[in-house]
């Protein structure tokens, strides 16, 4: 029995459906969640192959030690020796703690199913190489890198059962939570429009935001732009900022230093707009446009609007 942990505090993400799809290829799947999402929504996990969903509504998820205890108890009561996570902010935090409490080897950021020897591929060296990981313990934990395999709808909604676990007192007290309205969170965005120093100043970001809005994309930036304060730090993608793997990454006025590429080289399709034909980013791009961002970006925006209208 494979247990999949689903964080449902923001609804169920595409990455969660991917994790269930992945787990189903390993065996029978029970999905485990916490929080207040309705049973109708949780039942959708059955569509991707979960045989049932267990939910502990008393665990709010702010204290990840508590979530870890909940998962460990669910794994033991179901006799699961494999737990699958999505390698998102929650998986990155909870899976390592669970690894210790279950004495289960952790494969973090998996991009493949186990091969015939049980080895699983992960990205290493910030996407510059792929490593094969073998787990030597009898139990294992796999956190699946989002966007590594497409979710497959194969069945119908499944039953949802209440689950009650003993998680102890919360050590973490939440003071405030800030979620910017209307913005698409960068790590989950399927499309990202990003800009760099080539834009010459923060006052010129309007066209980037317009293009992002037309595409339903998140906005991002290069490190120098975040460092000089043109854009907030949480928009910085690259080796020391956020690493992203959207379907479409549009880079405007970014030269493509190796540290920037390390954060975006998992993108499926990369479009680069730059005035400098020698910009190293063109080597990593699928489509390149040599031109002035101030001409190209509004024109691209118009072309997409025209396409969407047609």
């Amino acid at each position: 029995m494979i247990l999949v942990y689903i964080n449902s505090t923001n609804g169920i993400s595409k990455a969660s459906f991917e994790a269930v799809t992945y787990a189903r290829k390993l065996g029978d799947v029970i999905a485990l969640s916490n929080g207040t999402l309705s049973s109708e929504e949780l039942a959708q996990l059955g569509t991707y192959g979960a045989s049932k969903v267990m939910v502990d509504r008393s665990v709010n998820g702010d204290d990840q030690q508590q979530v870890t205890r909940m998962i460990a108890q669910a794994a033991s009561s179901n006799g699961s020796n494999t737990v699958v996570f999505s390698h998102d902010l929650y998986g990155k935090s909870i899976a390592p703690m669970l690894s210790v409490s279950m004495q289960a080897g952790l494969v973090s950021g998996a991009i493949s199913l186990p091969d015939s020897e049980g080895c699983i591929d992960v990205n290493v060296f910030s996407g510059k190489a792929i490593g094969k990981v073998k787990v030597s313990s009898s139990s294992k934990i796999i956190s699946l890198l989002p966007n590594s395999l497409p979710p497959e709808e194969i069945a119908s909604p499944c039953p949802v059962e209440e689950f009650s676990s003993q998680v102890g007192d919360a050590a973490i007290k939440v003071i405030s939570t800030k979620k910017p309205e209307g913005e698409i969170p960068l790590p989950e965005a399927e499309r990202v429009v990003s800009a760099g120093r080539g834009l010459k100043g923060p006052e010129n970001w309007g066209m980037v935001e317009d293009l992002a809005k037309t595409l339903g994309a998140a906005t991002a930036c290069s490190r120098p732009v975040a460092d000089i304060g043109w854009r907030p730090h949480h928009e910085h993608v690259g080796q020391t900022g956020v690493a992203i793997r959207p379907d479409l990454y549009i880079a405007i006025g970014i030269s493509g230093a190796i540290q920037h590429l390390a954060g975006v080289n998992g993108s499926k399709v990369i479009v680069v707009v730059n005035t400098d034909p020698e910009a190293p980013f063109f080597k990593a791009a699928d489509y390149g446009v040599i031109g002035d961002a101030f001409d190209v970006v509004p024109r691209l925006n118009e072309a997409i609007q025209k396409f969407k209208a047609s």
Partner: protein
Amino acid sequence: MKILVCISKAPDTTSKIAFTEGNSKFDENGVQFIVNPYDEWYALVRALELKENNEGHVTIITVGSAGDDAIIRKALAIGADEAVRIDTDPKDAYYTAMQIAAYAKENSFDLILTGKETINYNGSQVGGMLAAGLDLPFVSLATKLDVSGTSLTVEREIVGGVQVIEVEAPAVISCAKGMAEQRIPNMRGIMAARKKPLNVMPAADIKGLTEFVSYTMPGEKSAVKMIDPENMDELVALLHSEAKVI
């Protein structure tokens, strides 16, 4: 406040990535090693700022061979008070975290900081494992950290936003961008680092849980297709029909 900062050795970000011994080992030949940037820029520098504001003692710890002493001296030059090296090959994240946990249990700390991940293995594993091994609260992806007595106020990234939380020390916190700014060691720091204690400790008897058996390089990307800047309709058509992303 006694602070432990976990640091790891990582290849410089511009290093050529290659493998040896039948693609089973990272080729260190000609590679310049640095302190993993998340450990140095965010965890270590914030620890030093906390020490400067509140008094305290900053110990850095790494798991590795004598070849790691150069990056340890660099961290000492930036301002850490002393260093500990657990003298063994860091076999996997679990092994590494349990070695650090064994040391931390013997030498109680009020605060343990790690970087959010290393730039070579990108696993984000050691911080959470260390917290679990010590049965301490774990706060991941912290972007701000303030201390008042034994109370820690932490701003952390959550999906779709940021959250401010409070937790009582001792706790383990993984640090991301926003915590602090990079510091360049000065000559006085470099000189002082030579005299600071570097304690080499034997490894605890622990078994790893995972192993990297081999490495491959990702396939070459196909050549870039250049589009006329006057013809954005063509780009949109290609993104739709060829790339299938819009």
